[in-house]
C-alpha cells in the first residue's frame, strides 16, 4: 500500500495514524511518499510519531484484538504486527531506474554483460528503491492534485489508485471505506 500525499504541508501525526491503521488491518508493506521529499528528510520525526501512535492506538485496543482473534489462534501474530515501512521520495522513482540503467551500462562497458541481456525482469531486479517490497496493490492518494507526482512510476503499473480529499484529520472511517472500495475492484490482467 502506498500513501501518497499531494498536499504541500504534510502532517506527521495524520500520516502516523494512517501507517498504524495499515499495520492494524494487516497490511504487510507500507510506503509513504510526498513529492517534495519532506517525509524522507524528516524520517526520524515521522518514526517518532508512528511509535507514539502505535502505543496509543494499538496499546489501548490490544485486549480487544486478542478477543477477536482468539478463536483463530492468531493472538501472537496480531500483537507482533509484522509490517514493513518505507519512506520514499521522487529520487526512488525515475532516478532509481536511471541508476539501474547506469549500473547495467557499466557492466556492458566492462564486457561483463551484453545489451541483449536486458529485459523487463532483469531491469526489475536491478531497481533498488523498493528492495524486498512487492509492487503496491493500492495507492491512497491524498489531496486535490490528480497526479501521482512521480511516485514509483515503474512499480505502479497495476496499482489501484484511490483518491481522498486530504490526509489532514483523516478519520479511520474514511481510511477503511477506501479499503472497501479497493476490495471491490476487479482486475482482469489484460485477459
Amino acid at each position, binding site marked *: 500500500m502506498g500513501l501518497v500525499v499531494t498536499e504541500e504541508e504534510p502532517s506527521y501525526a495524520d500520516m502516523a495514524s494512517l501507517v498504524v491503521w495499515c499495520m492494524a488491518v494487516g497490511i504487510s508493506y507500507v510506503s509513504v511518499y510526498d513529492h517534495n521529499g519532506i517525509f524522507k528528510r524528516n524520517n526520524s520525526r515521522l518514526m517518532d510519531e508512528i511509535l507514539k501512535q502505535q502505543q496509543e492506538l494499538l496499546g489501548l485496543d490490544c485486549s480487544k484484538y486478542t478477543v477477536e482473534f482468539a478463536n483463530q489462534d492468531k493472538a501472537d501474530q496480531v500483537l507482533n504486527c509484522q509490517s514493513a515501512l518505507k519512506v520514499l521520495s*521522487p529520487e526512488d522513482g525515475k532516478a532509481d531506474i536511471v541508476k539501474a540503467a547506469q549500473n547495467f551500462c557499466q557492466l556492458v562497458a566492462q564486457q561483463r554483460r551484453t545489451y541483449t541481456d536486458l529485459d523487463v525482469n532483469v531491469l526489475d531486479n536491478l531497481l533498488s528503491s523498493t528492495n524486498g517490497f512487492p509492487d503496491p496493490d493500492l495507492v491512497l492518494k491524498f489531496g486535490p492534485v490528480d497526479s501521482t507526482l512521480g511516485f514509483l512510476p515503474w512499480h505502479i503499473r497495476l496499482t489501484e489508485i484511490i483518491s481522498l480529499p486530504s490526509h489532514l484529520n483523516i478519520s479511520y472511517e474514511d481510511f477503511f471505506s477506501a479499503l472497501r472500495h479497493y476490495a471491490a475492484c476487479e482486475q482482469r490482467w489484460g485477459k
Partner: protein
Amino acid sequence: MSWIREGELTIIERFCGNIIKAGPMPKHVAFIMDGNRRYAQKCHVERQQGHSQGFDKLAQTLRWCLNLGIREVTVYAFSIENFKRSKEEVDGLMDLARQKFSRLLEEQENLKKHGVCIRVLGDLPLLPLDIQELIAQAVLATRNYNKCFLNVCFAYTSRHEISNAVREMAWGVEQGLLEPSDVSESLLDKCLYTNNSPDPDLLIRTSGEVRLSDFLLWQTSHSCLVFQSVLWPEYSFWNLCEAILRFQMNYSALQKARDSYMEERRRQQMERDQAYVTKKLQQEGFASHGDSQRRWTLLQKCTAMREERIQGFLQALEHKREDFFERLCTVSA
C-alpha cells in the same frame, strides 16, 4: 476519413468549446479506451462489435480533439498482456487492425490534407508480419506530416518500453557511442518509443477502472490523471470537456510540481558533473578546488563532448528505427 470523423462541432459544442479554450488547454492527451467488452455485454452484442464501436468512438474523439485544438493524441489500442486473451478475440482484434490500417493507407490523400502523422508504438515484432508491414507503410507515408499526431500503442507495455530504452542505451555503450555516465533521465526520455512527443498533459481512462495498466508510466508521472466511469464506446463530447476542466483545475499545481522536479533534476546533474570534473582534475594531478578557470573549461569541454556523443548515438538510434520500417516496406513491395 475513417480514422478521423469528418464534421464540425454542433453550435452548443462549439459554444462550450470556446469557453473551455479560454483556459489552459492540454497539447497532448492520452486515452486508455477501456470498456468495449462491457459495452458489448450491456448491449447484448458480440465482443467484436464492441471493439468495432470502440474504433468508431476513437475516430469521433479524434475529431473533437482537433476541433478543440488538441493536436496530439496517444491511445492504448493493444497491450502485450492482451495476447493472453482467447485466440478468437486476439484474432478478431488483429483483423480489426488489418482492416483499419488498410483503410488508412487507402486514404493517403486525406491524411496529407489534414497533415496527420501516424506513429505506432510497441514491440512490433510481436505482431503478425502482414500487420507489421501495414503499420510500416502507414508510419513511413505520414512521417513528415505535422499538423496533428496520432500515436497508437499496439503490442505495448510501459515496462517493455522502458526496458527497451535502457537496452538501446546499453547498445549505444556496446557500440562505443556512449559512456555509461551519459545515461540520464533526459537521455532515457529520448530513447522511449514516444521520444518525438511531449509528455501527455492529460491521461483519461474510461470504464471506471482506476489504474494505469502499464501505460505510459514514465511519461505520465506528472500528468493530470482523470478516471471516468463511462464505457469507451459511449464516450461523449461532454465527457471530454469534463476531463479538460479537471486538467484546468490541476494546471497550476502540476506546473509547479513539474518545474520543481526539473529544477531538482538539473541541480543533481550539475552536482554529478562537478563531481566528475573534481575527479578528473585529481587524476590529472591538479588541486581539485584550485583553479576555477580550469574547472570551468574542463566542465564545458566534458559537457560538449557528452552532447556530441549523445547526438551521434541518437542519430544511430533513429537510423536503426527507420531501417526497421523500411525493411518491412521492401518486403511487402
